């Protein structure tokens, strides 16, 4: 088999090995590649910073599943760290069935860093309710209609933090962390109908579809994929909110090198393709 033919028909296991190494090596030896903070990420940070401490809460919707957790979990951790450190109150809920597990896992990961943070006082976890549009509309009337109790079965009226919170008027900002199209439901009802402020944290693959909402101002900001999460980690670190390990930033090294490897493979694949084509045109044997 001639050279270009061999390159064209490269066994995919070599490609898998290259990608495996590209992901693994930066984890073992972090490269600390440069990271520029983009405006959409800074806007999310500023929107949270504008919430007065111990004032109206930030509502975080964890509408994602474990499959997208590597990108979205770091955003949840960073937001919780920012809020708990600065005494901003948080409401967590899920409109996606597996999202409740992600919120619970996120709380379990972050709460040991903040032993003083108390459920019902500093944060409220509402759990999951089916009926996405219905729940978003219900919160516009009264959050108790959708969630009569918190996830642990405690009536909302008996939670100190929920005493003066009825609907979107009493919630400062919504941040939807989503691996699905649920942000569109939030923007349709919570933003368009009730005039609520909203930001999103989404996977890199779905970020493209949300740019129109960002440009129109319906989203005050956006965290896109692992890069968005890494930018947010950098922002809260710069502000002095945390010294915790920056998992998205470490992941960015791996992602950057993996991107480079994929680009390298695309270039090699194209060179092989055109070399073979040129030999074919000249009538010569392929790949010689």
């Amino acid at each position, binding site marked *: 088999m001639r050279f270009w033919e061999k390159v064209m028909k490269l066994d995919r296991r070599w490609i898998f090995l290259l990608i495996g190494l590209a992901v693994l090596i930066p984890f073992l030896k972090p490269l600390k590649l*440069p990271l520029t903070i983009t405006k959409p990420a800074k806007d999310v940070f500023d929107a949270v910073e504008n919430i007065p401490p111990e004032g109206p809460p930030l509502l975080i919707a964890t509408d994602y599943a*474990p499959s997208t957790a590597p990108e979205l979990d770091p955003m949840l951790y960073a937001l919780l760290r920012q809020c708990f450190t600065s005494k901003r109150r948080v409401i967590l809920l899920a409109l996606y069935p597996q999202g409740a597990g992600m919120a619970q896992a996120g709380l379990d990961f972050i709460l040991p860093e903040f032993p003083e943070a108390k459920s019902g006082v500093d944060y409220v976890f509402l*759990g999951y309710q089916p009926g996405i549009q219905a729940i978003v509309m219900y919160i516009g009337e009264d959050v108790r209609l959708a969630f009569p109790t918190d*996830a642990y079965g405690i009536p909302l009226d008996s939670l100190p933090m929920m005493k003066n919170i009825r609907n979107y008027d009493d919630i400062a900002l919504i941040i939807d962390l989503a691996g699905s199209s649920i942000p569109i439901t939030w923007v349709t009802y919570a933003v368009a109908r009730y005039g609520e402020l909203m930001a999103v944290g989404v996977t890199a693959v779905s970020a493209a579809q949300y740019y129109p909402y960002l440009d129109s101002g319906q989203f005050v900001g956006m965290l896109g994929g692992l*890069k968005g999460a890494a930018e947010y980690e950098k922002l809260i670190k710069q502000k002095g909110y945390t010294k915790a390990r920056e998992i998205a930033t470490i992941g960015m090294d791996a992602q950057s090198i993996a991107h480079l490897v994929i*680009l390298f493979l695309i270039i090699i694949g194209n060179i092989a*393709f055109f070399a073979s084509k040129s030999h074919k045109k000249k009538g010569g044997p392929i790949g010689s």
Partner: protein
Amino acid sequence: MRRQIPLLLTFLTGVAIIIAFFIPHRPFNEVQDILIDWAIIITGFALLLGVHSLLRKHITHIQRKDSGWGFSLILTFFFIGVFVAGIISAFQYKGYSLTPGSSLYFVYDYMVIPLSATMFALLAFFIASAAYRAFRARRLNATLLLVAAVIVMLGRVPIAENAFFKFLTRFSDWFMFIPQMAAKRGIWIGIALGAFAMSLRIILGIERTYLQ
């Protein structure tokens, strides 16, 4: 009558929700609240219907010993297992089955999360392999797509802090905010118009396929 009553219900429900959207005051918001209540109940039953459909399909596979029936067996076994874990946890922890320490939480933390993450992580390998084989500059369209993808990919992950990568980052941002967004807006407007037209057809009883 079997057709007229559902059509009338659809019309009244649709009109009530539209009015409540624009006039969120009594009595329209109260009607809306009742309809939302019903929607939540129906959604719950729809989930049950989904579970029934899934299990029936896989149990039939197992009974007939169709090809791949072993996978159906595994799915059914774990479905029942997780369901039982959920019920036990709900009883044990007074309704909240995902309480840390519960058996459902254990299943979620040590099985669902790693398995889902593994499945998604495999994409990186297959995308790389597919990109190598399929991303070829065969025609003008393919070449434009290739160039755009290379610029955006590099712009998203700046390897070094120099003028070249700064330019790439800026160009990538411009690309996402202008041409990409223009195309996306066109798609969204098309979808919205289509959804609007279809909703009107359903409310007015022109579109009746959902009755079949």
